[in-house]
């Protein structure tokens, strides 16, 4: 008789009740030496946690990748993240399954007649297992829905594969819990043998586990960066309005102070700009500058644009970043920082999901420049001129460009003029009229003035008179106010506190002068000047922001707008169609009726995604320097 394949003989034996221990060897293996039910539950829970960690880690990594753009940049990131999440889910599953096992055992041990007891034991164990399995399945299904929703939908095949993986994982965990409950009851001399439960042998558990693991990894890689080409950006049809815009963003500006100074004739540029079309920005208590200014630049709320907070976290072993967008996160981040698993990072463009107004304008063919706006690093190569929020650091630390400035050719020019530009900014800050204040206050103000003067100088240098859109962000006032009025100022003496008001007013005058200069970057003819002001981090919650428009087609009016209306208003003024998926439409009431009639609002479905955010790092990184700079400016602690 010829030898038969061993697998075939195994199957035949299994069909006859052999090779089936009727207990899950893996799950109960660690429990074999425990005498007490509590010991069995604890030992088995650790094994269940191990199983859950291995299976749920990759699956959760897929979900987190969609929820945290920029976190996973390559396959190594995905693997490392899977390990982290595997550990996290493993611990959580151990605890939860341990509790479920104890609860299920307690229910099964309720007094009852001897004839009904075995059935009840089996039912209680099975019911607990089913509950655990269903909870797991619900969670996995929800994360998949969230993940696929954020990714802009997915194919039926991918969804089917995801659900298959979810069902398999849920069955395995539910079964493991049920088996362990029965083992606990056996140890108490109460439970039925573990028969008639599905997947009770290692031979079925291992293949199913491998299927789940392979499926989850497959999905992770399939959904990973680089495997799917970003969709082609929608075509933008422009009806040029002929307007050329300069957008001035002043962070930390208090409208009440400006009004008072304007009345005294001390800030003529502010007075002029606030004299035509003015909008009050609807109350928004959000004070995180990266989040607020990205909302303004994209016309979408944070959950759509992706920048949740100024401070994010670099995760050890990952090239990508994890955003910090909840209060609970701060505690966790503190703990993981101590463990060296994470370290602070500043919100970057890699995390942003959708384009800013200047990126949309550049895509439509407008000559655009954006200077020092939040989360503009890394500067994309084909979005006009971008002098990112790391450009000054790069100019201070000359080296190979790491996307701090685009186009790269501009870097050489700015680098050549940097010493002179820097000296002028320092000299200008020195001239800030703040005599009579303490050295501490003077230092805070001069440092802010130096930064603002540098940014203004860079803006003027990037502009050669041909730009259609110049966007400049000035953070100095916010930094100065935070330093003097915020947390850093709490230790001031009464005399020092009293001197802050007049000193800050002089800083407003300084800013006023800078604005006057920047405006000249765009020729007067057909020039639209847009002034945006946000209250800044140190402002009272009730303080409102303002938007002011000045130009030949602007109507003198006073309106109230949401901050998400600013971007569509700017794009409308340039002659671009407005995306229907924006959070708000353009504020046409700020423009002359004749202009609005001549250029009616045109709509299109969407501006599309920003494009592939993940990128390989090149050049010499400035991550550490950026953190230190943000720390020294009071943005992060």
């Amino acid at each position, binding site marked *: *008789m010829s030898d038969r394949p061993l697998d075939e003989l195994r199957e035949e034996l299994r069909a006859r009740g052999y090779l089936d221990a009727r207990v899950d060897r893996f799950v109960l293996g660690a429990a074999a030496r425990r005498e007490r039910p509590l010991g069995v539950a604890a030992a088995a829970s650790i094994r269940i946690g191990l199983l859950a960690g291995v299976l749920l880690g990759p699956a959760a990594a897929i979900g987190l990748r969609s929820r945290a753009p920029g976190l996973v940049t390559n396959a190594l990131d995905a693997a490392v993240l899977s390990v982290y999440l595997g550990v996290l889910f493993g611990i959580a599953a151990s605890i939860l399954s341990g509790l479920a096992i104890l609860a299920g055992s307690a229910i099964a041990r309720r007094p009852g007649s001897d004839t009904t007891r075995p059935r009840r034991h089996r039912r209680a164990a099975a019911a607990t297992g089913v509950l655990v399995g269903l909870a797991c399945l619900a969670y996995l299904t929800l994360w998949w829905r969230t993940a696929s929703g954020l990714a802009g939908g997915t194919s039926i095949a991918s969804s089917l594969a995801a659900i298959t993986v979810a069902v398999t994982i849920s069955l395995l965990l539910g079964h493991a819990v049920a088996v362990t409950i029965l083992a606990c009851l056996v140890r108490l001399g109460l439970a039925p043998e573990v*028969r008639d439960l599905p997947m009770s042998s290692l031979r079925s558990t291992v293949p199913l586990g491998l299927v789940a693991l392979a499926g989850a990894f497959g999905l992770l890689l399939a959904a990973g960066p680089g495997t799917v080409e970003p969709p082609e950006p929608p075509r933008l049809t422009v009806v040029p309005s002929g307007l050329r815009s300069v957008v001035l963003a002043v962070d930390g500006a208090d409208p009440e102070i400006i009004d008072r100074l304007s009345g005294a004739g001390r800030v003529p540029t502010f007075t002029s700009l606030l004299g035509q079309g003015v909008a009050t920005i609807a109350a928004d208590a959000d004070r995180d500058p990266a989040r607020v200014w990205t909302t303004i630049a994209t016309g979408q709320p944070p959950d759509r644009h992706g920048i949740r907070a100024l401070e994010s976290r670099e995760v050890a072993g990952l090239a990508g970043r994890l955003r910090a967008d909840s209060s609970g996160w701060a505690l966790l981040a503190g703990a993981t920082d101590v463990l060296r698993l994470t370290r602070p990072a500043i919100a970057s463009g890699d995390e942003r999901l959708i384009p800013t107004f200047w990126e949309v304008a550049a895509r439509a063919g407008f000559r655009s420049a954006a200077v020092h706006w939040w989360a503009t690093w890394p500067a994309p190569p084909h979005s006009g001129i971008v002098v990112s929020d790391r450009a000054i650091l790069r100019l201070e630390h000359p080296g190979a460009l790491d996307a701090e400035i685009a186009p790269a050719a501009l870097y050489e020019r700015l680098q050549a003029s940097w010493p002179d530009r820097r000296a002028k900014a320092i000299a200008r800050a020195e001239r800030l009229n703040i005599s009579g204040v303490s050295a501490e206050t003077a230092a805070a103000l001069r440092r802010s003035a130096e930064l603002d003067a540098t940014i203004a100088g860079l803006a003027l240098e990037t502009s050669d008179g041909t730009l259609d859109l110049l966007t400049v962000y000035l953070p100095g006032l916010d930094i100065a106010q935070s330093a003097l009025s915020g947390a850093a100022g709490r230790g001031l003496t009464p005399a020092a506190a009293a001197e802050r008001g007049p000193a800050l007013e002089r800083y407003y005058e300084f800013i006023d002068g800078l604005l006057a200069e920047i405006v000249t970057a765009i020729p007067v003819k057909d020039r639209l000047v847009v002034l945006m002001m946000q209250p800044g981090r140190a402002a009272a919650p009730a303080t409102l922001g303002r938007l002011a428009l000045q130009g030949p087609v602007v109507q003198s009016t006073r309106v109230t707008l949401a901050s998400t209306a600013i971007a569509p208003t700017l794009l409308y003024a340039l002659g671009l169609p407005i995306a229907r998926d924006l959070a708000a439409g353009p504020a046409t009431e700020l423009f002359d009726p004749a202009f609005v009639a001549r250029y009616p609002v045109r709509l299109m479905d969407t501006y599309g995604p920003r494009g592939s955010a993940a990128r390989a790092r090149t050049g010499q990184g400035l991550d550490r320097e950026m953190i230190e700079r943000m720390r020294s400016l009071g943005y992060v602690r």
Partner: protein
Amino acid sequence: MASLPARFEPCQAEVSRALETFVPDAPGSRVVLAMRYTLLAPSKRVRAILAMFAADVCSAGGAGRARAAACAIEAIHAASLMLDDLPSMDNAPLRRGRPAAHIVFGEAVTVLAAFGLLNAAFASLAKSYEPPLAARLAGVAGDAIGLDGLVAGQAEDVLATDASINFDTLERIHRRKTGALFGAAAVAGGMTAGGNEYELAALSAYAKNLGLAFQIVDDLLDVTGDPAETGKATRTDARKTTFVSFSGVAGARQLAGELCDTAIAALAPFGSRATGLTELARFVAARRL
């Protein structure tokens, strides 16, 4: 010849001492001599050890109470060997390192001695335990011997000699001829120690896998063993289909190992109390004789 790990030796010795009085010597009685000849022949006493260890896992110190049941199981096993070796059956000349009973005492006396051992086993169960337990134990023993046990297995085995049988038939023969008595030993041991139905079920699963593993190793030893070591004639199964016929030597060894692993896994609910049974399974998987 009974070379067992040291852990089993006290138990083995205890059973051997008990068996000395199980069939009292009766000078001049050839049939009693034949009964004692096979029953007291050197043996590993695997089934008896299984019964006593099974009692121990259900109740610490339960082995002593299982001694009578263990002896009854050994008596049933000895009777089955005597019948199995008869010329009308396997016609085996050697058993336990000595000439088979029918060679020494003749066929008629051997048949009678076998029946004597079977009756002695049931009598011992009836006398050693209280009536309800004795009745349950007798039922277990009767089932192991009867129409789904040794008798049926031996009948099918005899009819299958020189015939080609399929895997299903082979498994059935082994289950009845070997597995049934292993199962009876484990369950009877557990019963004497008051094991509940769940513990008995776990012991039954253990014994079922162990019994088949034991038989497969027996088949292997028939092919690869040395009569001087095994104590019985080898190549006697040449006319029979065995597990080795289906899977080859390596495959049969692999399956025996997996069955023993499964048997051990079935003991998980007993925890460290099952260390003895675990070692017994490992011994079965590795035995050379």
